[in-house]
């Protein structure tokens, strides 16, 4: 059982980290900017009577296409919450590593990992609770009701919760990878590239059908338009596979954390 004061102290550490706020800002501002640009492009095309270059004119599809990049914000938050413990940027922390000081205060390492996981879950949920409605609101305002809406209200709500789950699981995986590698640069670089520049999982999926069992592809249909989604697992099996990857990585990270020197 995690004590409330342990969660509170980890929460305070996290929300006072500049890197976490950078992640929160990326998770909010990048999808917001992309939503505005996507919807304005769609609106201009519809008004000009030439939407042949667009995949569809649905406002909700524009929102979901933009919200994919919010995953980068979740990755930054997940990596920063753990990576800051291993950072040697600050001369104020003991021996350059904050982790030794944290372990003096909380010697039970599994509890510390669980507390950090809960903090990341809360932070990313908060980010989603702000970003998703704001993007939807901006898109609705800017679209002016133009275009053909193909997403029903029930589908939109289900996909919003699916996206939120995808963000949370991705952030926890990022946390686990950062804890395993005890490093910020490597997980941040690999995961941001995979979620923005080019998905290595997507490339692999073109070469082998086994790639659909990779966590990011397995969970893709939680929020993607089924008509344009990659050839991957259905929503429920995909969510279970992604959650299993997350739990497995987290267990491995916690196990290695308890068996290594700080």
């Amino acid at each position, binding site marked *: 059982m995690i004590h409330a004061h342990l969660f509170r102290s980890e929460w305070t550490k996290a929300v006072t980290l*500049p*890197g976490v706020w*950078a992640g929160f800002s*990326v998770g909010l501002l*990048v999808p917001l*900017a*992309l939503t505005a*640009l*996507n919807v304005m*492009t769609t609106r201009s095309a519809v008004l000009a009577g030439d939407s042949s270059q667009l995949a569809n004119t649905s406002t909700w599809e524009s929102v979901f296409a933009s919200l994919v*990049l919010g995953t*980068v914000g979740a990755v*930054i938050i997940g990596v*920063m919450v753990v*990576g800051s413990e291993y*950072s*040697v*940027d*600050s*001369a104020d922390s003991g021996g*350059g590593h904050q982790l030794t000081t944290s372990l003096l205060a909380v010697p039970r390492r599994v509890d510390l990992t669980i507390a950090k996981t809960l903090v990341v879950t809360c932070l990313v949920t908060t980010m989603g609770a702000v970003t998703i409605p704001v993007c939807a609101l901006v898109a609705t305002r800017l679209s002016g009701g133009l275009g053909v809406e193909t997403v029903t209200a029930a589908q939109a709500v289900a996909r919003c919760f699916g996206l939120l789950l995808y963000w949370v699981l991705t952030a926890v995986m990022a946390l686990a990878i950062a804890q395993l590698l005890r490093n*910020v*640069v490597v997980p*941040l*670089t690999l995961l*941001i*590239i995979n979620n*923005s*520049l*080019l998905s*290595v999982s997507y*490339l*692999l999926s*073109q*070469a082998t059908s086994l790639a659909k069992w990779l966590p990011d592809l397995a969970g893709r249909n939680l929020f993607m338009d089924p008509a344009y989604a990659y050839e991957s697992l259905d929503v429920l099996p995909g969510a279970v596979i992604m959650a299993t990857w997350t739990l497995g990585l987290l267990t491995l990270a916690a196990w290695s954390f308890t068996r290594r020197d700080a």
Partner: protein
Amino acid sequence: MHRFGSALVAELSKATTLPAIGAATGGTVGAGAVVVWLLAAVDPHRSADEYLLASVGFLEVGMAVLGIAAAAQDCGPGHFRTALLAVPRRNCLLMAKTLSFAVVCSVVAVLAVASCAGMAWSQAGARDLGSNPIAWGRLTTVVLVLVAIGALSFGVTLLTRSGTAALVVMLGLIALLPTVLSSYPAVSQWLPTEAGLRIYAGAPEGQVTMRAYFALGAWVTVGVGLGWWRFGRSEG
């Protein structure tokens, strides 16, 4: 001059023996080749030139990490003071650090491009012996752009004095902003990677290569200049 030479040798020695730089070099060279191999596995009907062009984005990320690894070495607690104890004149230290990085960065850029081009040639050649070869001009401009991205990253790290903050800034510039602004080429053409793309791949409008050189040059000049300014005025 003798002191500067000694500082340069010391900085080169530091740069070439840092594990982070070795890892960034190996990662960039190896990942570039793997990406080309994957691209060829996914779409076997493209030319070697197209495979190389598709891999440059990954190489740019690798060069950004290299710049961060090289500059962040003296941003850690105590390192900056020790470096200044050895070389008290900051401009001399900065010049030696920048020149040593330029040497390392150029070598890594050449290795990375050679690795990607070699893999691209082997993959395209295995399927189509008559495929387009990659022009020397293309290889040279890709190396030039990669060195510029590495230098910009080096400057941003000196400016932020934090490897993590520099990484977020650089990945934002390389991976996120071009995606967000992809529908607005009039704006995105001024981003460093987009300017680089117009240098090594050519611009659709034709006569804008000089503008691309100007944009990339301005990013590097401002980035490194601000980094020098901040580094020269930082407390130990």
